[in-house]
């Protein structure tokens, strides 16, 4: 039983230190896992301390809640496929935000002194937590393809969104002004949930990395606001650390697409694009198809091959086969590197995790800025299931929706081989100029099957 504020204050400080150390350890893949253990220890200290506080009861319910949450968490974390990481993160953002909103609701219900500081914090915690919960649910549904990944828009959307948010804010002000009717907070939560849904619906699938990062920041801030409600520094600090992480990632992602965050959120990107690709450009250039045998010869006699993996590779579960192909080429003395675009995959850093899962050593993974100067020296750029991040239109065609987005300079390699299922445009719904380039050849088919054929063909060379 802990009743001395200094004692539990110090224990919570231990937690804060552990969290900061955990984040510091993430600066290198070598120590990162240890850092996670430190963070875990910090969390256990916080949970243990809180349970030991004077006046805590309802032990049976406490045990039930922790047991259910633990089972759900462990099973989810153990079974999730690495390709589904973005959905997983979206769910965790959502449940964290939901928990913050519920804590605010309970505090409002039992508030002894409505109005004032505490109510401001309750309102913020309920508002941000609910937006994060509903927004994450929609983001999850989009990523899981339960609803269309394309932007869902309706007329005067931004106006309606703003009105809903203003409505929620008005209720918040009512609560802060001292109206202690229960419905005020119910209404606020309802409108905030509605806003969360409407704010994510019009955002296209290609922009999900930005949205997940932003919702991550929201959830952190909701936790921080809860800290103000409960006068808990550990919540304030931890929530803010997450808020900073989410904000930083949001800005980095937006920068990688060369767009402002506002444009991502309110621009309803890509909605005017037509599906279906060009077999032939207006000036008579055509797409050239090739065979696994030809590609195998190109690869086997190359000095340097840069592999450009995209989400298509992950969908086909071809990572392991790609790594096998790379190993085979390395045994022949070919230098193999992987070029990772910051928005490859569906969330920041996603592609690195997918390749790490396939046992690709992280020393072979290169960021865009590191690898771009090397493309001119590469004999072959092997593009596997990546599309928009290789589109030269981003550099040259001001009318393209992705104009200005930093891309991998694949077209500067001596030759380009693209493994692709069909000429369908990518996630952003934009045609790719690269496929019409005379030095590009296309190997059509499922990524996994194509790579397996390449492995067999390279062995036969």
């Amino acid at each position, binding site marked *: 039983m802990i009743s001395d504020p200094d004692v539990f204050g110090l224990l919570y400080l231990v937690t804060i230190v552990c969290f900061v150390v955990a984040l510091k350890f993430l600066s290198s893949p070598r120590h990162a896992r240890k850092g*996670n253990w430190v963070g875990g220890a910090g969390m256990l200290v916080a949970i243990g301390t809180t*349970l030991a506080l004077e006046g805590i009861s309802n032990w049976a319910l406490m045990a039930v809640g922790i047991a259910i*949450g633990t089972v759900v968490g462990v099973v989810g*974390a153990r079974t999730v496929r690495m390709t589904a990481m973005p959905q997983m993160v979206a769910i965790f953002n959502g449940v964290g935000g939901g928990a913050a909103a*519920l804590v605010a609701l309970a505090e409002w*219900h039992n508030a002894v002194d409505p109005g004032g500081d505490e109510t401001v914090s309750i309102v913020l915690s309920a508002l941000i937590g609910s937006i994060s919960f509903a927004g994450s649910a929609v983001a999850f549904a989009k990523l899981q393809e339960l609803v269309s990944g394309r932007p869902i828009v309706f007329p005067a959307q931004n106006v309606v969104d703003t009105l809903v948010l203003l409505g929620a804010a008005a209720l918040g002000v009512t609560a802060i002004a001292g109206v202690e009717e229960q419905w005020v907070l119910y209404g606020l939560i309802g409108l905030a949930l509605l806003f969360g849904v409407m704010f994510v619906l019009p955002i296209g699938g290609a922009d999900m990395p930005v949205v997940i990062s932003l919702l991550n920041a929201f959830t952190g801030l909701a936790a921080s606001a809860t800290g103000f409600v409960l006068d808990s520094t550990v919540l304030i600090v931890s929530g803010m650390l997450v*808020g900073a992480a989410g904000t*930083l990632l949001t800005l*980095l992602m937006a920068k990688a697409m060369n767009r402002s965050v506002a444009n991502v959120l309110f621009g309803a990107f890509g909605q005017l694009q037509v599906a279906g690709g060009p077999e032939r450009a207006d000036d008579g250039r055509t797409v050239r198809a090739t065979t696994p045998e030809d590609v195998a010869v190109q690869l086997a006699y190359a000095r340097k091959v840069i592999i450009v993996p995209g989400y298509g590779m992950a969908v086909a579960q071809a990572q392991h086969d790609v790594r096998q192909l790379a190993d085979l080429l390395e045994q022949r003395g070919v230098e193999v590197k992987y070029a990772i675009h910051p928005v490859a995959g569906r969330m920041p850093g996603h592609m690195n995790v997918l390749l790490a899962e396939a046992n690709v*050593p992280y020393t072979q993974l290169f960021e865009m800025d590191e690898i771009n100067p090397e493309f001119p020296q590469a004999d072959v750029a092997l593009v596997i299931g990546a599309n928009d991040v290789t589109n030269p239109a981003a550099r040259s065609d001001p009318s393209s929706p992705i104009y200005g987005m930093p891309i991998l300079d694949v077209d500067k390699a001596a030759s380009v081989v693209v493994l692709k299922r069909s000429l369908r445009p990518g996630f952003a719904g934009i045609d790719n100029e690269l496929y019409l380039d005379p030095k590009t050849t296309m190997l059509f088919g499922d990524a996994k099957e194509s790579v397996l054929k390449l492995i067999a063909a390279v062995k036969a060379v």
Partner: protein
Amino acid sequence: MSVPLVIELTILVLAGFLGFEVISKVPTMLHTPLMSGANFIHGIVIVGAILVLGHAEDAFTKTVGLAALVLATANVVGGWFVTDRMLGMFKRRPEPPRERSE
């Protein structure tokens, strides 16, 4: 145990700067684990859920507190395990260790 609001705000702002400082050192390669690690850290809202449920007297508060605790626990446990699982995959060289053939 009330802390003055100004002090809490000071702590908030300083934590923001600290967060930016520490997190800007995280390489792009580890951004997915960073995000799931951040997921895990905002699971600290479990402290709030325990306080609510632990002091709950009426049925409404108990229900809300229990729901919050389930969500927060799933957040903490799931966030930690999935981060650990991912970080375990990052290796310098695949096992068994071998030299680059050149």
